[in-house]
């Protein structure tokens, strides 16, 4: 098991380095001189611009800038916000935690509702209930979350006055609509996947044997089928948390949720390189870490993964 974890971590190192290179390359492809954009029309003195550019290291060759960026990253220095002058980490960390809070709430909605609906659908295969759940699931997973968010605001905030329109406070009222907008799509995906996974297991010989022995439908589903069906579902659910981190981008803009997506959006419009780099970096690294955790969890739950891994290595 430790070998497997070590291997996964080792493979991730070049991916993380590649990530930083990609973010850096894309950032420096954004047109316009960032110094002139930040200073606006008020300051045009070329000497002042040169001093600021030197202070920010923007007068160095690109590969030197990247090396300096990577060195600072390893020291935990993500740079300074161009607009506020504050260390970027001071803004990004709290914003990231809020995005995590939103993504985690949406994730809970997706699995706590999606898995039961998928089970019901599988047990009532080809019935009206099954078709209704599947049509609803396809519909939910196809809705754009930014449009769904606006519709939810119209219904629950504007018409029914049950929730605030937007913003953040430590109250469930503020998080429920953005979490629904973000989570309902994944609810649909979870329900469909659970149904498929459970049907796959219900077709197995040992389930037929359990039925032949006279076990109740409930006992067969819960004690035998679900345990095996849950393995791929857990894997999918883990990956969904990562996708929700990225999907929160649009929802945070709609609901003015002060998370990392909204921060990144501000950074794009301001050409705020350090802030944008740090925002994207945090989300991408979190996604990589979640994928590693899911892979390890999957190997832990399903021993066949470790056996296949050992066979590949010739052990």
């Amino acid at each position, binding site marked *: 098991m430790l070998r497997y974890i070590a291997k996964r971590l080792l493979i991730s190192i*070049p*991916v*993380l380095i*590649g*990530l930083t290179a*990609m*973010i850096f390359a*894309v*950032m420096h*492809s*954004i*047109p316009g001189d960032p110094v002139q954009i930040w200073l606006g029309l008020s300051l045009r003195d070329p000497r002042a611009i040169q001093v600021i550019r030197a202070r920010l290291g923007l007068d160095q060759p690109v590969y030197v800038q990247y090396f300096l960026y990577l060195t600072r990253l390893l020291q935990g220095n993500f740079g300074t916000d161009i607009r506020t002058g504050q260390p970027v980490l001071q803004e990004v960390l709290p914003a990231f935690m809020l995005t995590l809070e939103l993504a985690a709430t949406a994730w809970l909605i997706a699995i706590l509702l999606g898995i039961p609906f998928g089970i019901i659908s599988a047990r009532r295969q080809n019935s009206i209930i099954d078709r209704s759940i599947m049509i609803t699931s*396809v*519909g939910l*997973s*196809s*809705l*754009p979350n*930014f*449009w769904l968010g*606006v*519709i939810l*605001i*119209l219904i629950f905030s*504007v018409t029914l006055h049950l929730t605030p329109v937007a913003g953040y406070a430590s109250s469930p009222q503020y998080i429920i609509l953005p979490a629904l907008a973000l989570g309902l799509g994944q609810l649909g995906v979870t329900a*469909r*996947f659970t*149904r*498929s996974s459970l049907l796959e297991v219900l077709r197995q010989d040992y389930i037929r044997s359990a039925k032949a022995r006279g076990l109740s439908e409930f006992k067969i589903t819960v004690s035998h089928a679900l345990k095996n069906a849950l393995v791929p579902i857990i894997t999918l659910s883990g990956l969904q948390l*990562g*996708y929700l*981190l*990225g*999907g929160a*981008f*649009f929802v945070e*803009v709609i609901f003015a949720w002060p998370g990392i997506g909204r921060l*990144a*959006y501000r950074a*794009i419009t301001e050409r705020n390189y350090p802030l*944008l780099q740090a925002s*994207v970096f945090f*989300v*991408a690294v979190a*996604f*990589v870490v979640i*994928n590693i955790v899911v892979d390890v969890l999957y190997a832990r739950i399903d021993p066949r993964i470790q056996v296949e891994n050992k066979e590949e290595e010739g052990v």
Partner: protein
Amino acid sequence: MFGLVWIIMAVILAIVPQYIAPYDPLATNTAIRLQAPSLAHLFGTDEFGRDILSRVIFGTRISMEVGISVVLIDMILGLFLGAFAGYYSKITDTVIMRFADIMLAFPGLVLAILLMAAFGPGVPNIILSVSLVTWPVYARVIRGETLRLKRTVFVRASRAIGMNGRTVIMKHIIPNSIAPAVVVATLGIGYAVLAEAGISFLGLGVIPPTPSWGLMITEGLQYILFDPYIIFFPGLILSITVIAFNLFGDGLRDALDPSMRI
């Protein structure tokens, strides 16, 4: 069936919107601005007096253009890179797949949004950004197919008679990998349409006044209190279009390989 019918309708609208839309989508008329849906304007009018139904119809062209272009580019990239990665040595495979892993390490549309910030707005840049983000999915699928096909009798026989790798890939691997690629592509069109709408919603995509469903939603946000139809209809048509592609993709997958059924 519903999916196929809607897709055919969408393609027709995309090809000849000028013969179906009742009004010019760019024609402004402040005298009839912010009118609720009526017989004269079935979806109402926006803040500039433009007919929303006509703009939704013309918006279909942008969505289909982006969706189909992205998928075509991804299929070509995915077929070649995936086939080469699966067929050739560990080094080729490692280089291509690690690069794919780096692209896939970005969740959702984060990388596409970042690329749009770099490339600038416009439909060609949207197509380029979304293609660059989604090609790894196709490459992975084709690589998996290639690894399976490499072990088949006809591929081994081709190698035994001295056929070189490139010829084996072009004559055997790619033609036999097209079916799973088409299934992924059909589902990918829906994703690309959503991506374009999302990017335009953030103001980074289509340039106004060109009609785009995402752009219409963001432009209508400020009128949501009293004129919600401005954002309702574009979003509804967008959702139905994505549903149609997903249903069609599911049906295609069930028909081509029932074992892949969800």
